Structures are given as C-alpha cells and as structure tokens.
C-alpha cells in the first residue's frame, strides 16, 4: 500500500471516537461530548472532500484501494476500495451523521454519550459496508451495523420501542443469514472472498437462481420491498428522530447497493430471468404503498411508507434494465434507468432524512406524532414551515429539487420498457402529492387550534443548520445534478456492461 | 463352576433393579442416589467378572478407580442433597421440578 489509507481512516476514526465518547460517558460532560462528536464528523467530512476531489471520474476500477491479509488461512482480506457507486454513499453517510448530530444537539439530554456513540459507530460501520471489497469484511460490517441501531431504537425509542427494535433486528438478521450461505458457496467456487473474483465466476442458471434468491432475501428486507416491509413503519415510528434519519437515509440504501454490487454482476442471468418479479414488486411498492401512505394518521408512519414507495423506484430503475435492453440495442436508456435509481437513493436520503428531522423537531416539543394533534404550525414557525415545504416538495418529486431527477429518469426510461410500467410508475406523481401535501396541509396550514402548537418553541440554531445543510443539497442537486451524475457514469456504465453479459 | 453367562445375568439383574428404582422412585432423593451407586456397583461387578474370565488385571484396577470416583460422587451428591433440603425443606423427588419447561 503506497498511499494514505483514507478509507480506513473514514471507517475507524468515528469508531475510535465512539469509544472515547463512551469512556467519557457521563452526562456531566455532555457538551464536551457533543463537540467531540461534531469534530469527528467534520473531520470525516473533510476526508470525504479529499476523497471527492481526488476521485477519478474516468475509470470504473476501485480506487483508494487498501488490501491487507486478515485471516490468511481462509484467504480473507481486509480489502477496501470505492467506485462511482459507493463514493456518493460514503459522502452521504457522513453528511447524514452530521445532520443527525446537529439535530439532536438540544433534544437529547439523557445518556448523551451513548446516544451519540451509536451514531458514530453506525457511521464507521456503514462506510465499512460501502467500502468493503471482500465479502467477509462486507458481511461483518453489514451485521455489526445492526447493533448500534438496535440499541438506539431500543434505548431512546418511543413507547413500543422494544417490540420495534426486536422486530427490526430479527427481520433484517434473518434475511442476511441466507446471504452468508450464498457467499460461502461462491467462495467455494471462486477460491477467495474478493467481490471481483465473484464477478468472473461462471455459474449455471440453477446456481444463479438460488444465489440470487439468497441475496434477494437479504437485500429486499433492507430496501425494504413489499411484502417484507412491515418492520420499517414500526421501526421508524418507534425510533428516536436520529435513528429514523439513519434508518431512512442509510440503512435502506444498503439494499439497493447490494443489488447493484452483488445481484446484478454476480448473477446476471438470474437477475434477467427474475426481473419481472422485481419489477412487479417495485410497482406494488409504488402504487400499493403509495395508497397506504395516504391514510396514515401518524406522521412518521406516513413518511416511512413514502420511503418504501420511493425505494420502489430505485428497485424499478435497477431491474428495468433487462426489459429495456430487450427492446432496444443501445444502452442509453438502461443507463439512464440505473442512474435514476442511484439519484433516487441519494435524493431520498436527503429529503426523507430531513422530513424525519422535521418531525423529530415537532415531536421534541409536543410529544406527539399524530397529524391530528397539529394544525397551523406554519403560523407559529414560519421558517421551519418553509424548510419542510422544500423537503415535502422534494418528496413529491418537484422539478428543481433532488426528488425529481430519479423519478424523471426512471419514468422516461420505463417508457422504453413498457408503457404500462411507465404509467404505473408515473402514478406516484399523484400519490406522492396526495400523501405528502395532504399531511403538510393538515400539519402546517389551517388555524392554530391547540394551545401546545401556539406555544411551540422556535427552532434552535443547531437544528436550523441541520435543516439548512439538507435544504442546500436538496436544491443544489435539483438545480445542477451534473456533478453527481458524472460520478456515476463510468461505474454504472461498467456495471451495465457486466450485468448484461451472460455467465452461462 | 459359575459360568460367565450366569455371572453376567446376576449383574444385569442388579443393574435392572437399580434402574427400576431410579425410574419408579417418586419420593426420596436418597433412594435415587443409592440406586445410582448400585448401578455403579453392578458395572463394577461386571468388570471383576470379565477380569476373572479374561485373566486381565486391568479390569480390577478400573474397579478401584470407579470406587474412588463413586465415593467422591456420593459425597458431592449428599452435599447437594443437604443444600436442597435446606433450601426447599424437602427431598421429595416429585416436588423438585424447577427444570420443568
């Protein structure tokens, strides 16, 4: 290794900081702990900036590669590296953690160190998942990440937190176990645990189908796809604001990331053969879940359901490529579809994360998540209402916000796949507007009817900064997504190439 | 002359008796312990019989080992029994079912 191990630093710096924070531990030093956490994430952000600046846009190869022998007996390596698919996710992780820390600055007063430590741990481990190029390392981070979020929900959650956290844990854990079997099977044939070796492995259709399904079980729970989505509304509803944000902004991305990193390139024929299933499930997520979101009475539940619908778009964009390629020779439409899925992931992290922070801000003041307990908040907190309007609009997919791009790309390319897929996907324009703006109307508009709303405390500077950061990204990506899209091009192009070549 | 068969049958009967005692006994924990000891003795007798008929002293050496272990076991068993009695005020087997699922 000749260069500076920047990825390792990104992974282990927050984890080390978490240990330090836990050692300090005491609420008496709460402010010191907050500052320490903030400094850690800001340092990570600086590292991300370096990463972004030095990232080469022209190659699809893994960059910033680190490779150390870890368990030589089984040929397991500590191998890291990022490409155009994982780089945005790494940066996203750091930004999300930063906003979460800012948003919980004033809200969390008990067990501050432990609370913040869970987020630092999570940051390190999630980055680990995105950077790992050795599947055992990947799997380790993948499972280890569950622990801090499990503790986070279980400790700082609402009334039914124990139920929700156990449900969440068992659900996602059960899904991942099968993946381990698939990884071991692949190892037996490839001779190493390196992802790149798996890419070159020839597999029969039957093997591919089984491996695809094993991966599907792990990833579909994380996305989550219908019908394995029911842990998400519960987990989101019960989790503290920060936990919800991390769940929505980071955890859900891992599923799609897994599809792109494992399912498509390792089992292209199975992905092709089963793409009809994935498209069907994605459309169900978009339409069925969109409908279900309309009738939610709990704000967090509503946003959770809207998350599922939005991730449906990402799944649709990912698996539609096979259908598109059966209709057209050039890869332009398929690439637009995949990139749409990627942008959808990034955008969803910002807008949904921000909505959860917003609900968290309201919850910290009134201790209710029910829409019916609010009315006329815009009258009392106008600035906050403007922020939430921006995020709601992104959730609706308004052009000029980040939420638009993914939907736009996916719908446009869907037309090439099949008119009715495009039509069903486009229904999200109506459903998204209906559930988001109807909620907005009931919470923010109208007369101030309750004493509690009338006496709402203004938003704190730290919360303002968190919201402003997110609003900046939502609008910037919406107005000028080209820098983000440029990062994708090489890697997505390569992904498409290897996903379209049969391995039989 | 006692044949191997008849000797083994005696020990088998001895073993079976202790087994029946173990299964049927519902009252006294001490009886249970005694049954276990009896089982060991039946096995010991087997060792001696085989040692005699095979002309191999190793079997008799084993008997001493087993006797030593059995003594230790009986000591520990009785100690546990006393502790149980102190705690539960009973050594009735049918009342000692805290392992019930």
């Amino acid at each position: 290794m000749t260069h500076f191990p920047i990825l390792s630093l990104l992974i282990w710096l927050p984890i080390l900081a978490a240990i330090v924070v836990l050692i300090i531990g005491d609420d008496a030093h709460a402010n010191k702990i907050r500052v320490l956490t903030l400094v850690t994430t800001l340092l990570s952000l600086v590292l991300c900036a370096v990463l972004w600046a030095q990232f080469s846009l022209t190659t699809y190869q893994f960059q910033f590669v680190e490779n150390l022998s870890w368990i030589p007996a089984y040929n397991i390596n500590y191998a890291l590296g990022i490409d155009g698919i994982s780089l945005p996710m790494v940066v996203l992780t750091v930004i999300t953690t930063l906003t979460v820390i800012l948003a919980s600055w004033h809200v969390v007063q008990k067990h501050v160190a432990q609370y913040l430590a869970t987020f630092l741990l999570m940051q390190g481990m999630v980055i680990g998942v995105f950077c790992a190029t050795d599947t055992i390392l990947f799997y380790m981070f993948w499972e280890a990440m569950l622990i801090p979020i499990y503790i986070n929900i279980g400790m700082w959650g609402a009334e039914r937190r124990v139920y929700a956290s156990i449900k969440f844990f068992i659900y996602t854990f059960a899904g991942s176990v099968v993946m381990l079997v698939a990884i071991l099977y692949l190892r037996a044939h490839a001779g190493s645990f390196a992802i790149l070796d798996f890419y070159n492995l020839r597999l029969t259709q039957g093997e591919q189908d089984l491996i695809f399904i094993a991966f599907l079980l792990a990833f579909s729970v994380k996305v989550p796809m219908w019908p394995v989505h029911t842990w998400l509304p519960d987990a989101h509803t019960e989790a503290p604001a920060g936990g919800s944000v991390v769940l929505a902004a980071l955890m859900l991305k891992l599923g799609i990331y897994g599809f792109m990193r494992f399912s498509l390139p390792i089992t292209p024929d199975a992905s092709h053969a089963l793409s009809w299933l994935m498209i069907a499930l994605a459309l169900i997520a978009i339409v069925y879940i969109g409908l279900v979101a309309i009738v939610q009475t709990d704000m967090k539940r509503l946003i959770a359901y809207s998350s599922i619908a939005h991730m449906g778009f990402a799944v649709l964009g990912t698996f539609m490529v096979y259908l598109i390629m059966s209709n057209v020779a050039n890869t332009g439409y398929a690439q637009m579809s995949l990139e749409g899925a990627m942008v959808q992931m990034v955008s969803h992290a910002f807008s949904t994360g921000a909505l959860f922070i917003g609900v968290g801000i309201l919850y910290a003041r009134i201790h209710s998540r029910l829409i019916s307990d609010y009315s006329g908040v815009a009258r009392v907190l106008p600035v906050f209402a403007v922020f939430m309007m921006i995020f709601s609009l992104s959730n609706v997919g308004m052009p000029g916000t980040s939420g638009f791009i993914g939907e736009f790309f996916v719908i446009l390319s869907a037309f090439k796949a099949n008119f009715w897929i495009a039509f069903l996907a486009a229904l999200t324009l109506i459903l998204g507007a209906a559930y988001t703006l109807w909620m907005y109307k009931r919470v923010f508009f109208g007369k101030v009817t309750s004493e509690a709303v009338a006496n709402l405390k203004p938003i704190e500077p730290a919360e303002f900064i968190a919201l402003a950061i997110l609003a900046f990204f939502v609008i910037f990506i919406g107005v000028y997504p080209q820098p983000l899209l440029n990062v994708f091009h090489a890697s997505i192009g390569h992904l498409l190439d290897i996903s379209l070549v049969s391995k039989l | 002359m006692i044949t191997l068969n008849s000797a083994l049958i005696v020990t088998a009967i001895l073993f079976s008796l202790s087994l029946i005692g173990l299964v049927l006994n519902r009252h006294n924990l001490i009886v249970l312990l005694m049954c276990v000891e009896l089982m060991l003795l039946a096995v010991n007798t087997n060792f001696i019989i085989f040692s005699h008929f095979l002309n191999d002293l190793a079997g008799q050496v084993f008997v001493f080992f087993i006797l030593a272990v059995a003594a230790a076991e009986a000591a520990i068993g009785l100690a546990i029994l006393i502790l149980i009695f102190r705690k539960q005020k009973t050594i009735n087997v049918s009342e000692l079912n805290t392992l019930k699922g």
Partner: protein
Amino acid sequence: MQLLLTAILLPPLLGAILAGIFGTIIGRVASHRVTVLGVLISFICSCIIFKNFILDHQSTQNIIAYTWGTSGAFQFNVGFLIDNLTATMLMVVTSVSLLVHVYSIGYMRGDAGYQRFFSYISLFTFAMLMLITANNFFQLFFGWEAVGLVSYLLIGFWFTREPANFGSLKAFIVNRVSDVGFILGIGGVITLFGTVDFLPVLAQAPKVAASLPTISLFAGTSWSIITVICILLFIGAMGKSAQMPLHIWLPESMEGPTPISALIHAATMVTAGVYMVARLSPLYELSASALTFILVIGATTALFTGILGVVQNDIKRVIAYSTLSQLGYMVAALGASAFAAGIFHLVTHAAFKALLFLAAGSVILALHHEQDMRKMGGLRRYLPLTYSCFLVGALALAAIPPFSGFYSKDAIIEAVHLSTIHGASYAYVALMIGVFVTALYIFRAFFMTFHGSCSANSASQDNIRENGWVIWLPLVILAIASITIGMIVKHADALQLALHAFTSLPFWLAIAGIVTAWFCYVIRPAIPAMLANKFSWLYYILIKKYGFDDFNQIVFVRGTRALAQLLYNYGDQRLIDDGLVNGSGRLIQWISATLKRLQTGYIYNYALAMIIGVLALVLWQMLIA
C-alpha cells in the same frame, strides 16, 4: 442575446428571493419595490426581444445556458428557444405580471403576508418565463411544475382558511393527474426521438411519422405512437389549461387573492397548455386523431363551462368560468390547426381577462372583500372608472367589434368553420352557442354589479369609492390594451373586419346575449328566478356543475381513501404484518410451547427416556447386524 435573457429571467428570481428570505428585514415597501423593479427590468428586456423578433423579424435563436445533467446517451440542458411565439409570450407574461405587481401594492395593503405575496408572484413570473423560454421538454416540465407549485402556494395564500387549503390541494393534485400524461408524453418523445430538445424533435417529426411507428398499449391493438404522444402531452395541457374533465380545480382556485387570479388563473399559467400545443404544432399536425380529440375537448369546454357561468353568484367565479370557456376557445383553435388564432386569442384574452379580474378585484376591495353579486348593484355611481373598465373588458370578452376579443374570437370561429377534421361541425355549433352564452354571463355579472339598485346598506355606501392609483392605473392600461390590441395586430384589415362583423352571425348572437342579460337583470329582474323555478332540474344540474365535483369527491377522493384504508387495514396490517410476520413469530412460539411439555423436570422421566433411547439404539444395531 444571452445577456438579455439573463436580464429577463434572473431579476424576478432575485426579487423573489430577496422579498421571500429577507422580507422581514428589508420591510414591506422595499419588498414590493425590489420585486416590481425586477419585473420591470424583465419587461423592458422583453420589449427589446419583442421588437427584435416581431418587428425586425430576427431568426429563431436556440441558446444553451448550462447542461443540467447527462445520463446514458441523453443530455438535459437548461436552454432557451427564442422565436416569435416566445417573444409574444414574453410580452404577455411580463406586462401582465408587471401590472399585477403594481396592482398588488394596493390590493394587498395591510395583509400580514405582504412580503410573502410579492415573493410568490415574482417567483411565479420566473417560473412562467422559464416555461415559455424553454428549448426542451425537460425545462418545459420544470416550468410547468414550478408554476403549478406557485399557483398552489398562492391559492392557499391565506392558509388559515379551510376553503383556500382545500382549493390549493385540489388544484395541485388535479394538475398532477394531468402531469402523469405529460411526463408519459415526454417519455414517449424520448423513446421515439432519442432527445428532448424541441428543434431536433420537431425537425425529425415528419420523417419519423412517415415510417408510421406504432405502439401496442393493449394486447392486439396498435396505435400510432405520434398520436399517443400528442394525446398524452395534451392531457398535460388539459390539467394546466383546465379543460374538461380536469377543469374542476380552476373555480376553486378563486380562493386565492384576486391579483393572482388575474395573473395566474387568467392571463398566464392556464394558457401554458395552449402555448405548449402551439409550440409543438408541427408534431400535432402529424396526427389528425389528436387534433380531433383536442378540438372536441376544447369546444365542449368552451360551451359547457360557459353555461355554468350564468348561474354563479360570486363575481370571481363568473369570471373563472369565463376563463374556462375562453380557454376552450383557444384549445378548439389549436384543434382546428389555427395555432396562430389560438395564440392571438391567448394574447387578447390575457389583456381583457386580467382587466376583468382586476376590475372585479377593485370592486371587491371597495366593498371590503364582498364577492357576492347579489349584494352588489348600482355601483356605477360610486366606481365610475372601474365601471367603464369592466365594461371595456366585458365588450372585449363578448367579441363586440372593434374590441380586441372580437378579432381573435372571429379568427377562431372562422378557422373551426373551415376545418374539415372529424368533430369540426360539432365544434362550430358549440362555439357559436358559446358566443351567445359568453355575452349573457358576462353582462349578467356586469348588470348585477354595476346597474340596478344598490343593495349594500347605507352605512357602507359612503365608504365605497375608487381606490388609489396603483389600483386604477393597471386597469386603465389594460383597458386601453383590450381596446387596441386587436386593431394593432390586424392593422390593415381591422376596419374591414369590423364592418364585416355586422353582417355575421356571431356578432348578432353576442348582441342577443347582451340584450337578454339586460332584459333579465335590469328590466325584469324577476325572470331569472322564475326560470330557475320552472327548469329547476336544469338549474340543479348547473348549480351542481354537472356533478363533476361530487363525482370526483365520491369516486376518486373517497374511493381512493377507502381503498387505501382497506389495503392498509387488511393487506398491510392484518395479512402481512399480523399474518405473515407476527404469524411466523407465533408459529415458533407454538412449536416451542408444544416441545417444552417434554421438559417435565423429573429426573426419572429423563432417565426413562434415556433408557428407552439406549434400548432403541441397541435394538437398531441388532437389527442391522
């Protein structure tokens, strides 16, 4: 050119940002100054463009500002296409917007959300300018959605009022329904042409159409993909331009402040659909079926929404229905391939409809926010200037020569008359009856408001007087425009056309409408009530607006919610969550509960089990041996 465009587009945006974000700091006066200044700069630059293109016949310009994003083989640019159509639209948007800005200084005085209002209308101006200057579908869609958004915000401007919130949400969602069509249309365009830029698409269109590409939407059918695209895009236009059956949001949008009704819901945004079809006219020319569809929808809207205007009592709603009806005329013109006539009517309509709205706003303001015409009457004595301006607007709307509306409407009716596509004769009849209806409802409103006896109580009568110059100046300017635009555009033939009108049927129909209104509402005010009683079933249908609202409310709104509730309760909660997820948990619990009975806790049970096990093992071994 690029500089000029920047000077048109950015000032309104900057004004919006300044007034919106720093409004509370810089204060009310500075807020309206900065936004008015922004739009003024825009207006002046638009005038220059207008001069360059319309008067000096400069050639079409296609400018790319920056590449928004690339993906796959496609490039999405933010770029501008400037030609005669754009130049005309620029004039309409910036001039009406400027006048409405000025007018709002008076109309919104004292409102708590003063700065917010100016920020919104400046933002709207920016969005509308983006829409009309777009050189590709992507940017068109951006402008399209952005004007819809600002419209949503402005309808719900008084967000503590429930009807305003309801109306704004309804407007947004109805528009979104049509946007589904629009975005699918764009998907069709990119599928067929491989690009979203207007010029390549329009240039390739005839060649592509010649190869007769088809699409199979249902198994076994095959439709011309050009027709499908045209109709999908037009569905988008139907929402924005409020064509039947997606017109339902426009009357509701009257809950917003009156200036925005003039700007957004009369002059500019609602005409975006007309603009879009005109912009894509070479594409639409390739599909006769799409044109028939457009013609029939337009004519139907023109007639049937006009009729509804006759029974409305809210002065703004009468004008709103009138807007629907006039939009129907424009769309019908597009259907008859008379794109120039459609745009011409768009321009004149922008002038006289903005005038009518602003005049109505003047009345409403003078009467302290009273909008019910039954409580008005005889106002011509108190508001002479408003009265005459409203009269000019009404005459222009009723297409009386030489007012501007006459020239444009005459062109439309003539075009539809000459059209030979399917549905043209139906459209012609509908538009003819529409002329009568138009004159009837607008003069009904005119007479009810300004003539007859004054119904306002005597105490408030003394307070009724003309508003300040910021209110009446825009009215006068628009009135002058309403009188002259038609004559200016048709300068050579103006007189001849006007004279010819006295021998044509539409003119006499319009006169008949005015006379009927005068007879029913001035001479014999008892007649309308009598008619309403006699034809109560008809009256009921009209009051219920043909049942569109109730139908939507019951079928779509409640139906969707009921379906969603059903899916949530039974699909998500019962079946998946309770059945599958917690069900598998319960299954495991049941299994372990069953198995744990084996664990009796008695040593002798275990011993017995052990012995049985050993015996079984021995037996098995013996059997094997």
